[in-house]
């Protein structure tokens, strides 16, 4: 909602959809929700053009609409879906990750879904076959089958999510409509308490819905087919029939960015332990997160679902060496100095992870042998580490010391800070003001007298993590916007050359470009690559601060 964020959103739309859609999106971003006529007014475009732009944006899940009754007619308001728009900068990383997790088929599926916004499974497969063709030695049906399989797998892991027509409505309007339905059942207008309980019930209902069956999958009985049955389903065989999970062919799917972000966050949490303890600890942590991942919906949850230690023992990757990487106290080893068995080692490892001062892993209160991950604490630690990294790289170690001390001890005066951090007061004062203008610190004035004379007030400094994260995110948006704009400028500077490259005869024959032009092209590509990569790295920082 800040200037920098708006600018970045606009630039994203410009790059992905072109200048006309950019105009429409710009108006929606800056001015909020409005009907078609008003948009046409602001952008000086014809209503038909505006409608087409809106169609494109809705197809890509970037715009949602709401219908409201105003006196005699129904007016449709259109609104930008900001989170989805800002996630589009992460597209390169999403493609890379889908290739890692689902192989090339997955990458192709993701690519085609991102190109078209939302597709059914049949359309998606058809699109891929059209663009990439079939490898020699394989038939079209085999290719279709493998693509279908990859698609189903992605749906089951919730990397692709079904889109229903109701998803195009704004979330707030949906909530209001549901509430209205509930309150209409009552004869009297609801009191505040009743309203609160209705909202809670609806929230719980939604939660249960998300956790239950995945929309878009259906089960049917099928004869045993090669390479098409599910391992789990084989247990339910009924003679020759197997229950097979398939994707429904008339449901549209889109890429679920949340799931990717969750997985990236899990990897980062596991990475915290790699240097701190050892790689085995990281592997154990990663396994725990994988097991608990299924029920994670978004990154804002506090605790993961519980994981039992037996399951953990069975799911560890084959090459983790538990025994040799622990250093035991002589008293633990017993009289024969034998090393304990694997499950005892795992117990010890889990104990170490639990006792670690980051307090991320802890025992589940109700049941024994089950462990829960404190996601809130983990995400706070990730954010704090990132902010420390930024402050350390930009300003230096003494600044980090002050920041850590304030984060640990709460509100302090500059005299106390100077004493604890062993730095002279003059230095400390300067550093505090620098950090405050940067956005990391907060100042609280406590006056001693009725008049707020500066010499008679206490000035208390503190670190508020959420505010620091927000301010830094804003600065990072500014940088991302700059990088993106510079890319446009670089391309615009060489527009003539690029036009020449697009000619069909030049595409066919490279030698029509002379050496200077080739060199220019190389410089351009190099510059664009640097700018893109830098933007992607900063986008990763932004998701840590904003979404984790």
């Amino acid at each position: 909602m800040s200037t920098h964020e708006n600018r970045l959103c606009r630039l994203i739309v410009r790059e992905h959809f072109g200048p006309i859609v950019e105009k429409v999106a710009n108006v929606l971003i800056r001015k909020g929700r409005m009907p078609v006529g008003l948009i046409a007014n602001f952008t000086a475009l014809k209503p038909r053009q505006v409608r087409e732009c809106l169609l494109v944006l809705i197809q890509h899940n970037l715009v949602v609409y709401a219908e409201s009754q105003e006196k005699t007619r129904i007016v449709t308001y259109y609104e930008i879906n900001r989170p989805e728009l800002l996630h589009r900068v992460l597209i390169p990383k999403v493609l890379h990750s889908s290739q890692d997790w689902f192989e090339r088929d997955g990458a192709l599926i993701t690519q085609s879904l991102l190109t078209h916004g939302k597709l059914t499974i049949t359309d998606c497969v058809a699109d891929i076959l059209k663009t990439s063709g079939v490898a020699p030695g394989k038939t079209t049906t085999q290719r279709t089958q493998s693509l279908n399989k990859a698609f189903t797998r992605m749906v089951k892991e919730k990397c692709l999510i079904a889109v229903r027509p109701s998803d195009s409505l704004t979330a707030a309007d949906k909530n209001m409509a549901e509430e209205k339905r509930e309150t209409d059942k009552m004869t009297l207008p609801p009191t505040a308490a009743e309203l609160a309980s209705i909202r809670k019930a609806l929230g719980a209902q939604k939660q249960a819905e998300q956790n239950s069956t995945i929309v878009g999958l259906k089960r049917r009985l099928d004869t045993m087919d090669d390479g098409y049955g599910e391992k789990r389903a084989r247990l339910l065989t009924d003679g020759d029939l197997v229950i097979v999970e398939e994707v429904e062919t008339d449901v549209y799917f889109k890429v679920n960015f949340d799931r990717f972000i969750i997985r990236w966050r899990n990897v980062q949490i596991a990475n915290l332990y790699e240097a701190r303890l050892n790689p085995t600890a990281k592997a154990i942590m990663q396994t725990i997160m994988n097991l608990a991942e299924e029920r994670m919906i978004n990154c804002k949850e506090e605790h993961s679902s519980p994981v039992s230690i037996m399951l953990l023992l069975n799911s560890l990757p084959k090459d983790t060496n538990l025994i040799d990487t622990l250093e035991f106290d002589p008293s633990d080893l017993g009289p024969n100095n034998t090393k304990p068995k694997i499950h005892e080692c795992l117990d010890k490892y889990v104990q170490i992870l639990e006792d670690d001062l980051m307090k991320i892993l802890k025992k589940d209160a109700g049941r024994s042998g089950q462990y829960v991950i404190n996601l809130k604490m983990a995400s706070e630690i990730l954010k704090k580490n990132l902010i420390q990294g930024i402050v350390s790289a930009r300003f230096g170690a003494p600044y980090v010391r002050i920041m850590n001390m304030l984060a640990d001890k709460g509100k302090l005066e500059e005299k106390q800070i100077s004493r604890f951090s062993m730095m002279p007061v003059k230095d400390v004062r300067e550093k505090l003001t620098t950090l405050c203008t940067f956005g990391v610190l907060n100042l609280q004035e406590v006056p001693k007298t009725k008049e707020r004379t500066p010499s008679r007030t206490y000035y208390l400094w503190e670190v508020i993590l959420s505010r620091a994260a927000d301010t830094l995110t804003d600065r990072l948006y500014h940088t991302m916007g700059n990088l993106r704009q510079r890319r446009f400028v670089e391309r615009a500077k060489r527009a003539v050359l690029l036009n020449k490259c697009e000619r069909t005869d030049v595409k066919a024959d490279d030698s029509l470009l002379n050496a200077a032009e080739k060199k220019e092209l190389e410089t351009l590509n190099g510059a664009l690559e640097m700018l893109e990569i830098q933007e992607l790295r900063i986008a990763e920082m932004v998701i840590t601060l904003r979404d984790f």
Partner: protein
Amino acid sequence: MATNLTPLEELFYQECLKAGNNGLTSTDFSGIHPDSPVMDTAIAMNSLLGRGFIEVFQLRGEQIYKALKKEEVGKAGALQGEEQVVYNTIRASGNEGIWTKHLKSKTNLHEAVIKRCLRALEQKALVKAIKSVKHPTRKLYMLMELTPSVEVTGGPWFTDQELDVEFVEQLTNHCYKYILMKSFPRDASCIFTSTHNAYPSAANVRKYIMDKRISQVDLSVDDITMLLDVLVYDGKVERFIAAVDEDWDDEDMDTDSDWVYKAVRDKKAESAWQDCPCGVCPVADFCSEGGPVNPAGCNYYNKWLDF
């Protein structure tokens, strides 16, 4: 031995000496020597006071007389009234020293008078002026022979009233290395189990520093704890309370804190932001799309892309 004191003065002085630190009240004296006339006792007391053999305190409405030792008698006896008052107040502040403003309020003397007295006392080498670390603009006075307390000088970290940053850094590095050595087993890929309890405490670190004679100044456990806290805030070391053993009461370890310290091997978070010019740009706040400083014509970008 006291010179030319009258017998009564002598007697009074001896009684005061005997009374020691508690002092002698006039009623006490008349109780011990009921035969001395009250008027004479009063004259004797005044003369002793004037010559600096005894000093008077007020306690709960009563006046108590304390005898001064021989050495002090010699010096203070030669002083005039005001100087004596000032001298006594300075002596009463012990090794904390006293500020001129406080001196003024305690003695109720005029500032010029106090200044004169202080100059005279300094000339006679009875008091000295020192600078405090906490309030650098104040001048504190104390008796010549006393050493300033830790509060005033700031302790071992200050040399000449200034924080000795290099000394502190050196010490912290040594402490960190010692803790790092003790926190992880020799094989770098292994880690200790959670029952391992040989992590060093502040006392252990102090012993190590003392044994290696790294610092010339004697450091207390509190000083070392301050250093270790600095390491904690730097993110290099963690502290936690160690598991307490059952046979705890006959250990001679410090019982006031059970903190033990463990080195942290976290990977330093690298910041991608600093790699691009915007992260280190001094005018980043001023930069905007259409303004005089904009990304299109940015010089830092030109240099950065011109690899």
